[in-house]
């Protein structure tokens, strides 16, 4: 299976994501922001970092990059897309996911490992997890405070589209939301970084379950 990883100017988790893709036995493919081509990948990861310096708003500029046009087409055709951290921000800016990620409530960057619960396993990025499973995942962001209006939140809950939920909310997110999916459930955005817990030497490899899920879903 080929998994594309987008690279915007300022992305800084692209190499980490590609390595994690390798670790689950898939083939990582670089998707340069200026190339309007997904190189026939089977899934796309929009990795973390500070695309375009996070200037203006995180994700605001990246969503216009050439490659994003293709990512949108791919997503709308049902292809599995995962946005991690800055990638989540890009996907909300691109309206592939609802809501917005505001500045952390205490106005500070937060970098630590937090416990989250897998709330929905019927997405391509959580299929390898147990339902209700608790994972310890790193977060590292300045704008991770998930916001959506009351109606949207109610819909997300009703339709079980909250994918990950914080057990200790590090940023003020509404409903402790750490990740959501779109209506068709193929596009998922999460703030925690699964690629960072990809090796026992780093304390755990729990994050690989997220990436392995997309292989399980594809029957690989």
């Amino acid at each position, binding site marked *: 299976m080929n998994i594309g990883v987008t690279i915007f100017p300022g992305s800084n988790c692209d190499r980490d994501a590609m390595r994690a893709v390798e670790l689950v036995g898939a083939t990582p493919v670089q998707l340069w922001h200026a190339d309007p081509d997904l190189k026939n990948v089977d899934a796309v990861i929009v990795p973390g970092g500070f695309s375009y310096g996070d200037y203006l708003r995180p994700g*605001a500029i990246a969503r*216009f990059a050439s490659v994003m046009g293709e990512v949108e087409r791919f997503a709308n055709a049902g292809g599995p897309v995962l946005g991690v951290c800055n990638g989540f921000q890009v996907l909300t*800016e691109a309206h592939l996911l609802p809501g*917005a990620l*505001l*500045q*952390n409530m*205490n106005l500070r960057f937060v970098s630590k490992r937090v416990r989250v619960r897998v709330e929905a396993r019927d997405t391509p990025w959580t299929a390898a997890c147990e339902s209700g499973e608790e994972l310890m995942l790193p977060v590292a962001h300045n704008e991770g*405070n998930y916001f959506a209006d009351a109606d949207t939140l109610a819909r997300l809950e009703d339709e079980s589209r909250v994918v990950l939920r914080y057990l200790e909310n590090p940023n003020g997110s509404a409903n402790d939301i750490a990740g959501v999916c779109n209506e068709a459930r193929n596009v998922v955005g999460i703030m925690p970084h699964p690629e960072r817990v990809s090796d026992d030497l780093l304390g755990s490899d729990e994050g690989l379950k997220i990436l392995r899920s997309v292989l399980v879903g594809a029957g690989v």
Partner: protein
Amino acid sequence: MPETLKIRVLVRPKRGILDPQGEAVRGALPALGFDGVKTVHVGRLIEMEVESADEVEAMCERLLANPTVEEYEWEVVR
């Protein structure tokens, strides 16, 4: 050389959207001896020189503000 227009765009958190930055500023004021401030909101100021104002609305809509959480206004200042 074509004349340029100076555009000023004000982007602010929509009403009812949490504005932790504004809250923090408001909270810091009394300690500095500033009383009588009822509300504070912090937003973004964008100033541009453009050749024509035709695209400004589209830029605001699509790039400069996030309609989910922000509202904007703009004017030609020169």
